[in-house]
């Protein structure tokens, strides 16, 4: 893997976002899961869709990315290249994390209105489609306009 690649920022255009949401929406209607999130491995949400709005997606993503990374280290210690998915089972809600490509994860929250099998099956398909979008985003991101931010613009955050 080209290590430099993970240092580049990910820039998501309106069009990319629509495409991501289309596939996440398609995945939700096929799998009957409650929510699907596209998360960068550093813990940041790239896109999300679903009905489970009572959850704190920002924190869930940070913790899930941490859990996934820890699991990858466990895999290495066991001589595996990777564990490509993690499943956390609860009483009502369950969490399924799968690896889309080197930098991005798919988080799925679901309950007993569907099954792990359904989620796994459709997550696999969704991951293939989403991986294509991520690759496309990487290829074209250098052409997008830059954002100029001056620190003065955010200074009022520090005013008491």
């Amino acid at each position: 893997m080209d290590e430099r690649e993970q240092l580049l920022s990910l820039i998501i255009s309106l069009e990319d976002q629509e495409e991501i949401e289309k596939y996440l929406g398609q995945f939700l209607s096929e799998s009957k899961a409650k929510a699907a999130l596209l998360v960068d491995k550093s813990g940041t949400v790239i896109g999300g869709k679903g009905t489970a709005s009572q959850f704190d997606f920002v924190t869930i993503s940070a913790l899930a990315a941490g859990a996934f990374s820890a699991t990858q280290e466990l895999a290495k210690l066991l001589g595996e290249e990777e564990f490509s998915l993690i499943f956390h089972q609860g009483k009502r809600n369950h969490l399924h994390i799968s690896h889309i490509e080197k930098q991005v994860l798919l988080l799925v929250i679901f309950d007993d209105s569907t099954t792990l099998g359904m989620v796994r099956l459709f997550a696999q398909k969704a991951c293939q489609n989403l991986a294509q979008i991520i690759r496309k985003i990487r290829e074209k991101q250098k052409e997008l306009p830059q954002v100029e931010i001056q620190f003065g613009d955010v200074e009022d955050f520090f005013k008491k």
Partner: protein
Amino acid sequence: MAIVNYAEREITCKIVYCGPGLSGKTVNLQQIYKTVSPERRGELVSLATETERTLFFDFLPLEIGTVQGFKLRFQLYTTPGQALYEASRKLILRGADGLVYVADSQKERLEENVRIFNALKKELSLVGYKFEEMPFVFQYNKRDLPNISPIEELNLNLNVDGKYPYFEAIAIEGIGVMETLKGIMQLVLAKISKR
């Protein structure tokens, strides 16, 4: 790795607080959590052991404001300081846009500060970063304790070329905490704008 989302009009950056065990990284996040108004921050999550030592990381999301129509978000993480948790530290460093090194000013901790600082540079290179390119500031914490090294001595040992900004702090009282955060944010934003 900053994420710029043109659809949601959001920019998200990651800042990691590192430093030796018990230097006050978690306290920094707790003070920021207390200082910032609730609508501009999320919940502080701590993955700690029973004795309140950070096991994996602490996490605090902040919403700084809107710049040119973009919502600017910062996510703050701490790394576990103890040597034991090197593997976890590497995971958290991944994707960082800026680093704060919280040093313990006490004389007897000087050696440990230097050792962990050198280890950090190594850990960074292992996850594919060049330390020289990373926005970076020092925080010399615990300035209220009796047996502390003078700032010159800390700079001489840690900030050898004097090229990184440093901030004196008594994090437990909130002194120097927001100044440090402001310092690292300035560097990160300058870097993003230049990109």
